[in-house]
Structure formats: C-alpha cells, structure tokens
C-alpha cells in the first residue's frame, strides 16, 4: 500500500481536511486530486501519488492534518489481484431534484428556510416536517458557530499585531481626477486597485522605511515592494494575495496579476506562493462603501498598511488662477497606519504625499 501524506512544506501552521474527493474503493489515476486541505491561508489539493484504488481514509473531514501526516492509503494498480473484479468506480447517484412533502413545502414558505439545504432525517435522507421545524426553531435561537481555521488565524494575527506594534494613522485625501481620466482613455481600463499598487510601489522611494521589518537589533529594509491586497471572502474571512516585485511591473501587468489573484482567492484556489513574502499591504475598504477605517491593523511583520476609502464626488475649494472656486472632484481618503517603533509621522506623511502625488499627476 502507498501512503498518502500531507505535504511537508505547507503554507500556514495548521491545516484541516476539508473534503475527500474520492471514496474508498474508487479507482484513481496518478496525480488525480484526492483530498482538499484548508490552511489559514489557502486551500491545497493533495494528489494521488500513484494510480490505484483508494483503500483507507485515516484522516476524515475536519481532522487536523500536520505536515507529513498520514491521510490515507492507496492500493497501487499493479498489485490488484488477478481475477479480482474490475474496480468499478462507484457511479455517482443520478442527480434528482429533491422533492418535498406538502407539509415541508408549507413550512418552507412560512419560515423562509430552503429545505434543499437541510440534512434530512427521513427515509433516504428525505427532509421531514420535523427537520424543517427544528431548523426554523434553531434559526430563531442564538447559535454558536465553531471558529474556522482561518478565523482563528485572523484573530491571533490581529491580537498579536495590536499588542506588538504601536499603531498611528495618518490621513490624506487623494484627488482621483487624473486616474479616472486615464481609465476612461484606456481601451482596457485597469482596476483602481492596480493604480493604487503602482502608486504605492512608487511612493516607497520617498520613504523606504515604510517597506521594512522590525527586528530587535536592526531594521530590515526590503528592496522589493511585494504588495499584498486584502481580499474579502465574505463571512469566511479574508486572504492577502501578494503582487511580488510590484516596483518592476507596469500598470497593465499589475492589473492582470490582480485580476488573476482575486479570482483564484474567491475560488479558494490560491497557491502557497501566492500569499507568501508580502512586505506591505493595501486594504481597499472603500470598495464596500467605507470612507475611512482607522486604524487598519498592520499585517505583521510588516511596518505599515495603506487604507483606501470610497471614491466619491465631493465639493471642494480649489484656487484657480488666483481665485478660490468651488469644484466637484472625485476624492477619496487614503490612510497610512504605521508601526511607530519603525517610523514616525514624518515618514508616514512623506510617503502619503508621494503616493497622492503619483495618483493626482497620473498621465
């Protein structure tokens, strides 16, 4: 028998088994995806080490899976005894739309609970009226939701960051007229996020200490701006895919990377290297309507985090040809939250001045 192991080098400190993609007795080809593991950062697939038949499942759903742990065993194709019946892959049951009794349908309308989403306790898994009544009572009561791996990791990271780094937030306002004009003139407009990444990479030159890591005896300054983007996964939490070496990329290249990473993040298909090695993070909280969030908590062990508010047209006073004028401009608040051990307000404001200048003079 061949052991199926958790990869030794896995991203994130702990993983749990999310799902087995094959059943015991099912034939698998080499490199077929076998198991899905969920770490605090990514979902990993473990593939079959060889062709054969899945013989044993040792870690089932929701079990903790440390690096090198034994997930199950595979009987290799070569040692299937001669004359043994061909391993018929168990055909999945024909998908039939679930059908519900009048009592269940009546309750579903009254309670707003979709019976198709309930586990049934009736014959053959049928959802009974008692099932939907119980779900309805449960929905009306307070509930306890066990923490996911991701939720626990976010909680630990946030607590550690606030306890470690004295947070200070500085706020500028950015005029997005130039960026929006550039977007309108583009054949394939980049997302605003791509502009913010490009401007952040450029702003590092004005205040290199923002792109750094604090050590007890020294400060480590990074040559590359590896910029992470906080990507919300709804109630599941958030992940931070990283655009590596952003200072070397054009706007179009950044936009392509962002589109690819966010799509895979939402599909749960990020690879470990996609979330590794970040040196700075952007929280684009404005996409969900927020004007200002302060402080945005620093993604340890980084030294600063950029918060971007919602872009909206606001009335502002500008001096035009020596005269004050009331103007309507697309504006957004941009905030830089720093680790005050590493830098002071001076560097934060220099960085923000450079950042807004890049955006406002975009050509």
């Amino acid at each position: 028998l061949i052991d199926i192991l958790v990869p030794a080098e896995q991203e994130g400190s702990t993983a749990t088994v999310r799902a087995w993609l094959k059943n015991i007795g099912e034939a698998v080809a080499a490199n077929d995806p076998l198991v899905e593991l969920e770490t605090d950062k990514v979902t990993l697939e473990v593939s079959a080490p060889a062709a054969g038949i899945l013989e044993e499942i040792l870690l089932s759903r929701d079990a903790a899976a440390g690096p090198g742990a034994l997930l199950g065993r595979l009987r290799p194709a070569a040692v299937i005894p001669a004359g043994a019946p061909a391993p018929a892959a168990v055909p999945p049951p024909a998908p039939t739309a679930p059908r519900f009794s009048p009592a269940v349908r009546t309750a579903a309308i009254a309670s707003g609970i979709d019976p198709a989403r309930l586990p049934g306790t009736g014959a053959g898994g049928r959802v009974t009226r008692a099932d939907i009544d119980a779900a309805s009572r449960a929905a009306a009561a307070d509930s306890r939701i066990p923490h996911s791996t991701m939720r626990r990791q976010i909680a630990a990271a946030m607590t550690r960051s606030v306890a470690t780094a004295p947070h200070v937030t500085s706020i500028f306002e950015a005029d997005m007229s130039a960026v929006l004009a550039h977007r309108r003139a583009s054949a394939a407009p980049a997302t605003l996020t791509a502009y913010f990444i490009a401007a952040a990479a450029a702003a590092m030159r004005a205040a290199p200490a923002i792109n750094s890591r604090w050590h007890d005896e020294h400060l480590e300054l990074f040559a590359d701006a590896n910029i992470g983007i906080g990507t919300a996964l709804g109630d599941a939490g958030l992940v931070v895919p990283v655009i590596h070496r952003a200072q070397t990329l054009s706007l179009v290249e950044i936009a392509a990377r962002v589109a690819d990473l966010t799509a895979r993040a939402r599909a749960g298909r990020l690879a470990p290297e996609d979330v590794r090695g970040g040196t700075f993070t952007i929280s684009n909280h404005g996409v969900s309507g927020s004007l200002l969030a302060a402080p945005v908590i620093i993604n340890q062990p980084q030294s600063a985090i950029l918060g971007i508010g919602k872009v909206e047209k606001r009335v502002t006073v500008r001096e035009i040809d020596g005269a004050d004028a009331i103007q309507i401009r697309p504006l957004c608040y941009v905030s830089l939250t720093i680790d005050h051990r590493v830098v002071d307000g001076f560097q934060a404001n220099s960085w923000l001045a450079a950042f807004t200048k890049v955006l406002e003079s975009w050509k």
Partner: protein
Amino acid sequence: VGRAAGMALAGLMPVPEIQFRKYAEPATEQLNDTGTMRWRSNNRFAAPMVVRMPGGFSKSGDPWHSQTNEVVFVHQPGWLVAVPSNAADATGLLRTALRGNDPVIFFEHRALLDHPSARRPYPGDEFLLPFGQARTVSRGDALTIVTWGAMVMRCEEASKGLSADIIDLRTLMPWDQETVLTSVRRTRRCLIVHEDTRTAGFGAELAAVIAEEAFLDLDAPVARLAMPDIPSPHGPGFMEFAIPSVGLIRARIEELVAF
C-alpha cells in the same frame, strides 16, 4: 328484513338479527329500499330499525361468517352504521340507535363478543353515545392511526412504546371527520387500519378525505393496512397473514414514522 320494514312503518322499532354478515346478501334489495324510505316519502314515512349483524374473524376465518364488508352499508343512502370496539360503546350506540328515526346496521364483531379488550362495566341505563363521535384511545405526536372494531385492540398493542394518536371511529356513517383531521393536521402522518379488504374498503374513503382536507399538512402519504383482496382464510396461520396482525401493524407504523 321485509317484515321488520312493515313493523317499522306500523310504528314499532324492530331489531332483526342477521347471522352472519354474509347472509345479509339475500336481503340486499329490502335493506336498500328501507334506507330510502324517508327520502322517497318526503319524510312522511320512516322505517327505523336496528339490524344486528355479527361478523368478522373469530378463532378461524371463512368466506361467510368472517366477512366484515361494512362499507356496503355505508354506501347505501339512509343507513347509519355502527362498528363498536367494546361493550360500553356498544351499549351507548345501541341505545342511541333504538331511540333514533333511522335504520341502523349494528355490527357486532365476533372476536369481541367475549374478548378481554372489549369487556367493560355496564355504563348504566342512561348511557347514550352520539353517532359520528370518535373515541381517542391514546394520544401521541408521531402519527395518527384511524381504526375501528376488532382492529382497535391490535393497534393499541402494536403502538406500545410509541407516541401515537389512536382514533376508534365507533361509527362509519356518519364518521368523525373533525377528530381525524385535527389529529392528522398535528401529527402529519396517518395510518388507516381495517379488517375489510383493501380495495374500495372504507379506508379508501378516509384516505381520500384526508388528502383533500389536510393536503398541505401531510408529511407522508396516507397509508392503509387492510386485508388483501381475498376471502377470510379458514386456517389460523393464513388468517394471521391476511388480517392485519399486531406485527404487521407495528411494521407499517415504523415504516410510516421513518418516512
């Protein structure tokens, strides 16, 4: 039956007895005509009588004495049909029948004539039971069992340890729709158990009314357990197979509760 009809028209209250159920067949026409007397005469004449009729299984079965086939009388306009399951109910229903103005088929089950489950203290000279009022034998939430006659004791035995509403209809014409429907709307599952053969037995009428009136409350199909469409067998072994036994009833209950 013809002589009884004449006596009734003359103002008496005859109580003819037909032994047994199967021997009512030669009197079919006179029975049928007795039922329509009030309707035909625009209520100027009535022929009230109580036709006592033993039937149903006993220690052994047979195609004649052991028939129940009460549904035939339910299907004849003008007749009331009583199917008591114990001596007290029989007393109350018989007294009501004797005081009424309509002909009544009074079905006396052979197995209950001297059975422990049917014995009751005499309920007194003034004890009357209205027709169309069922007895709730036991209360529970898992399902409703609707039955009558000799099947009541078997349903009680079969549902021991379970939470079931057992309803003894006591009369089939009229039958107590309100009690049955109220129970089924609460338990959402209903098993009908009767001794008569299944096809077009009275359970079919019950099932149809329940499906019509309580459709939105049902969480399982209305179930029937009855004798297969065969004559009541002679041999006790065959009888155990054909007539709903405690074991068969229990199995059907469990199946329905698990649905």
